[in-house]
């Protein structure tokens, strides 16, 4: 028995030491505690004041929250909006989007466009965070890295570069020589890009993270983007701390060419995925900005906040559409009149006013406001009057559709959505309206994300929730997905005329032709076929402290914190 007692002692000891070690290993976390607390803003501003009567706060530490941890900081691998937010602070592409969605000079000082040929002149004073100059070769290197079939792992967003000549062929291994691809470094500061077809929005695309340059030192180091100490960047901030699941911290990059317009010293990001907690800690003064696009303000609280935080709550429309799609290959939605009846029989205004509450706009078209048309926004040039809400008409159409299909009573319909409180509420509201207005039994079924996507992509559904956000500022980003066999066409819709219109628009740079084709295509999609049932155009709902200035939200809801600053309270 004696022997065994000592064994127990040993075990206890091992456990205790383990605990102790674990506790020691994280001492460094305690040092940063003061940054997160309330004291960050309590210093009186002794430092020089900024222009006007705005006085800069002494502590320029911005505190925000990301509701999900970005899986990677490698621009070639990034795929999500959280990474987009962080990468925007750390990198700079050839261009940068301003808040109206216009590309502005960034790493490129100026450029010439000649049909499908773009010549970018890079600024000579741009430096990497280690002091190396940013050259045209860095861009070529980065883009080759994205496109190369040997990149491990393959860059999922490589197709964002398929606009370049031979890029797709190179990526798919049909062309093996990268010099065939339409990007060349003429000299250190001149980058020549050739694209496949005239693309009016290409300039804007170069501000997207897949187009960011990366430093050539990453070549043989696949762990570079995991390690804060190894990341060499060309943007306004550098990654200085990353504790998995806890915080991400970026600090001002002293080697950034435009460092004088950067006033923030540090951006400290917590990683909390509870919207209620996020808001509570904002109200408690632990965060400076909450809500979209990096988090969410609980819908239940929006009406209250509209009242209590009138000056802090901001609602801004973004180029994104919330809709339900019909599986046009499945009963009973293989009948257009039944689809129309469903689309007409709901009250969108009631949904945005009472359910989503975020000032969303009822949608009757697919392309959202904020997307550029010829002279004005596309949506202003083509009103979304492809159908109206009309109960009588809906009932008639349903009757007609049922006759065509030989139904005496419509069987129960299943509406699927991916698990989320917001989607659940909309689904329940819509289902209830269908039930009341059309007398149809509707089952709502929430599905776990992966299961949901799989079911939708395999056309294993009747009606499904969906949403689409612009990748670039052009109607194409919404309309080219519905072509026959399109990777994101999860409805089974196929229409030869539609395909032709899109193909034609892709091959011309005549604005009028493109515009006419887009509006015709949208008409086919919504008015003639009602493949989908638009519900509303998204808005960005966020709250930001009055002393926080200069946060830029772009047309699609991306946020740029790099030029933000804090004034004295």
């Amino acid at each position, binding site marked *: 028995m004696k022997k065994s007692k000592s064994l127990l002692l040993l075990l206890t000891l091992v*456990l205790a030491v383990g605990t102790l070690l674990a506790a020691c290993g994280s001492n460094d976390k*305690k040092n940063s505690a003061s940054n997160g*607390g309330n004291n960050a803003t309590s210093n009186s501003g002794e430092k020089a004041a900024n222009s006007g009567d705005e006085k800069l706060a002494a502590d320029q530490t911005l505190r925000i929250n990301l509701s999900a941890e970005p899986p990677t900081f*490698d621009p070639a691998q990034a795929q999500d909006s959280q990474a987009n937010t962080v990468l925007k602070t750390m990198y700079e592409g050839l261009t940068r989007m301003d808040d109206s969605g216009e590309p502005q000079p960034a790493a490129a000082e100026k450029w010439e466009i000649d049909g499908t040929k773009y010549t970018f002149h890079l600024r000579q004073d741009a430096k990497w965070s280690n002091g190396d100059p940013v050259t045209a070769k860095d861009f070529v290197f980065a883009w080759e890295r994205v496109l190369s079939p040997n990149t491990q792992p393959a860059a999922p967003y490589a197709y964002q570069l398929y606009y370049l000549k031979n890029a797709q062929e190179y990526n798919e291994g049909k062309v093996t020589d990268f010099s065939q691809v339409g990007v060349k470094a003429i000299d250190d500061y001149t980058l020549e890009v050739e694209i496949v077809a005239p693309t009016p929005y290409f300039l804007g695309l170069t501000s997207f993270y897949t187009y960011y340059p990366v430093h050539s030192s990453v070549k043989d180091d696949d762990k570079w983007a*995991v390690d804060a100490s190894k990341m060499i960047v060309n943007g306004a901030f550098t990654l200085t701390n990353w504790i998995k699941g806890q915080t991400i911290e970026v600090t001002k990059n002293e080697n950034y060419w435009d460092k004088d317009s950067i006033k923030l010293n540090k951006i400290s990001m917590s990683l*909390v995925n509870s919207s209620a907690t996020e808001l509570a800690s904002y109200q408690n003064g632990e965060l400076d900005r909450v809500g979209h696009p990096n988090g969410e303000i609980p819908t239940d609280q929006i009406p209250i906040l509209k009242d209590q935080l009138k000056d802090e709550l901001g609602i801004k429309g973004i180029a994104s559409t919330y809709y339900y799609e019909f599986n046009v290959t499945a009963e009973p939605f293989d009948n257009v009149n039944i689809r129309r009846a469903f689309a007409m029989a709901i009250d969108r205004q009631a949904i945005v006013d009472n359910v989503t509450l975020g000032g969303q706009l009822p949608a009757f078209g697919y392309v959202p406001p904020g997307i550029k048309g010829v002279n004005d926004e596309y949506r202003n040039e083509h009103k979304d009057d492809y159908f109206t809400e009309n109960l009588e008409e809906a009932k008639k159409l349903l009757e007609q559709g049922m006759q065509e299909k030989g139904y005496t009573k419509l069987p129960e319909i299943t509406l699927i959505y991916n698990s989320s409180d917001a989607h659940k509420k909309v689904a329940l509201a819509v289902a209830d309206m269908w039930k009341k207005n059309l007398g149809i039994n509707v089952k709502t079924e929430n599905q776990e994300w*992966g299961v949901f996507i799989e079911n939708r992509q395999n056309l294993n559904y009747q009606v499904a929730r969906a949403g689409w956000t612009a990748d670039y500022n052009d109607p194409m980003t919404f309309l080219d997905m519905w072509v026959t066999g399109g*990777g994101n066409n999860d409805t089974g819709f196929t229409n030869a005329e539609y395909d032709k219109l899109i193909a034609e628009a892709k091959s011309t740079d005549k604005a009028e032709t493109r515009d006419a084709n887009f509006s015709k295509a949208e008409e086919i999609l919504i008015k003639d076929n009602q493949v989908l049932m638009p519900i509303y155009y998204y808005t960005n709902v966020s709250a930001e402290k009055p002393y926080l200035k200069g946060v830029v939200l772009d047309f699609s809801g991306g946020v740029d914190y790099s030029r933000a600053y804090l004034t004295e309270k």
Partner: protein
Amino acid sequence: MVRYVANKFFFMLVSLFILISATFFLMKAIPGDPFTSEKKVPPAIQERLYEQYGLDKPVIQQYVKYLGDIVQGDFGISMKMINQDVSKIIGQTFSASLKLGVVAIVVAVIVGVALGMLAALYHRRLIDNVAMVLAVLGIAVPSFVVASLLQYVFASKLHWLPTMGFKGPLYYVLPVAALTAQPIAFIARLTRSSMLEVLHADYIKTAKAKGLSWMAILFRHVIRNGIMPVVTYLGPMTANIVTGSVVIEQIFGIGGIGKQFVQAISVRDYPLIMGITIFYGILLMLARFVTDIAYVFVDPRIKLTKGKEG
């Protein structure tokens, strides 16, 4: 004793093997894969990703390869968090869960046993009733309600404690309180119930009759026998607290392993799911193992030798 431990250890390995196999095939049976996304990746790129991660091979082949890697102690790299080592992710996220968990367990055991003992010693008196009402409240109110209430009162209203995060001692208070409400209640009830039993047992009467001092009886007999069920509960509780505090982690914004696991499952990050599962498994088995051994020391009536007579 050595044989007993070796035997247990061997069984642990076998269980681990079964656990790995079962999880692997279960995981593969769930629809979706790490590269399923709303904006679909072109098929050519998707296929290359499958190939690079070996997902194009038959499941059985993937399984054999995985086993081979595991035997060499290689947990692989995450398929979602590009180029990040699974072992590192587990290490980093577990450190938060562990710290929170250890504090919570210690608090739960001390407070729970103390409450339960008081209640038993003052059976059917005021202290008993108060302690049991407290204990029952701990069980009766869902932990996420407790957490929200605590957060509102102590962070939002009184500003005594931070709302979220995990940066220093103050950050522990609320999560630990929310996390321990239920175990405290459970332990208090278990302790009370088994102490009452012990207090009525003949050997206590004998001890009293022998003229042993009350303190001696309490410490030599009552407590030792009374906390038996608590020891049993300790194993599962440790594992539950250390691994299963997802809700609390979420509400208080603590990036623990629970949150990571939920995340891994939802994005089908196969290597990470496997890694955390194995980690959980080992942790749990160790907890059981230690419990079993501790059992022997607390209760001399249990013998280790095998055979019909136990």
